[in-house]
């Protein structure tokens, strides 16, 4: 498989994989009012921005939807001090990284989500 195909493979596909009981671990932002915690969606895409900021870490990802249209996603993670305890740091991601991200989708149907976990191209999993 050539690199173009690999890239397209990484960028392809959006699918709902599971339902979960909502556990508002961080009600501070987002939480149940912004995101549908009963659903999880997974997207393969490329990081365009990784912001290690307060109140919550933000990750923007470009990914193609099932129709091949490029979508610009914005994901909310927890706060830097919480993520540090889970093995993250401000260099955990960089623009250009290929990732598979699983998230609770926006209740409004916009391209934002609350991140549940992500897997980098080298198999590293971050939650």
């Amino acid at each position, binding site marked *: 498989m050539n690199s173009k195909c690999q890239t397209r493979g990484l960028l392809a596909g959006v699918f709902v994989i599971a339902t979960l009981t909502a*556990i*508002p671990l961080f009600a501070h932002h*987002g*939480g149940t009012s*912004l995101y549908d915690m009963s659903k999880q969606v997974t997207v393969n895409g490329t990081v365009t921005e990784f912001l290690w900021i*307060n*109140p919550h870490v933000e990750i923007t990802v470009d990914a193609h939807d099932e129709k091949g249209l490029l979508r610009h996603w914005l994901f909310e993670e927890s706060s830097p001090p919480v993520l540090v305890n889970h093995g993250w740091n401000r260099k955990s991601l960089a623009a250009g990284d290929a990732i598979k991200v699983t998230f609770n989708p926006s209740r409004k149907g916009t391209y934002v989500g609350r991140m549940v976990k992500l897997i980098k191209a080298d198999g590293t999993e971050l939650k």
Partner: protein
Amino acid sequence: MRKRFWQAAFCVLGLAAFVSGCSKEAKKPNSVPDLSGIWLGKPIQSLSLSDPMAARPGTEGDIPYTPWALQQMKAERPATGPNATFENTTDPALKYADPDGYPRASIHPMRFKIVQTPAAVYQLWEYDKSWREISLNKPHSQVPDISWFGESVGKWEGDTLVVDSIGFKDSTWLDPIGHPHTENLHMIERIQRVDPETLVFDFAFDDPKAYTKPWSGQLTFKLQTDGIMTENIYTISDELKFRQRFLNEKPSIPIRTGQQ
């Protein structure tokens, strides 16, 4: 000669007193439990012992609301619980980026450090880089200030640190679900290191305008690996920027630009 003798005697006595004083000081930390360390609590949303995840705020059964407090609970719009709303929340910590105050500061899913001295116990939170002093063996001020974290004095009763706190600003919530209090809140905490890895805070909240009788809460913390404390200072500019990006809301006031 006689003068020299008395000078030498005073020196010896002074040195003995100094050493004796030092010795007593050195023993103090060993005579009471050591609470120091970095601690992390369980993720809860309510201080109700019967409803820690805030599934039924206002009807928990273990919180003796006055009509005033129940009205407050119904009027507020927290960002958690069954009717959570983030966009229109009245949570002062979100709406105004106010300090959490106490005990809410300890409910954040972030760590705090306890630094213990013979004269005081300090809690240092990562969130908002805030801190609280528990002065030991001292009375309250005659006219305590009204403050976000209140005024706390404590004393050791056996292996338990008993803390008496007053002077809380009434605009804070006790917890994320919005349990209210007045400036007359009188809070007693009993803090115990029940095992090497576990710290338990038992609370008694006495606030006659808000609650018909004192009620109890409890927070439990687990010891964390000693390491470098991080920082999570949350500003109104951060909040408005978040809303701009996630909700497409136009900031109502100028906000800081740039990524950080």
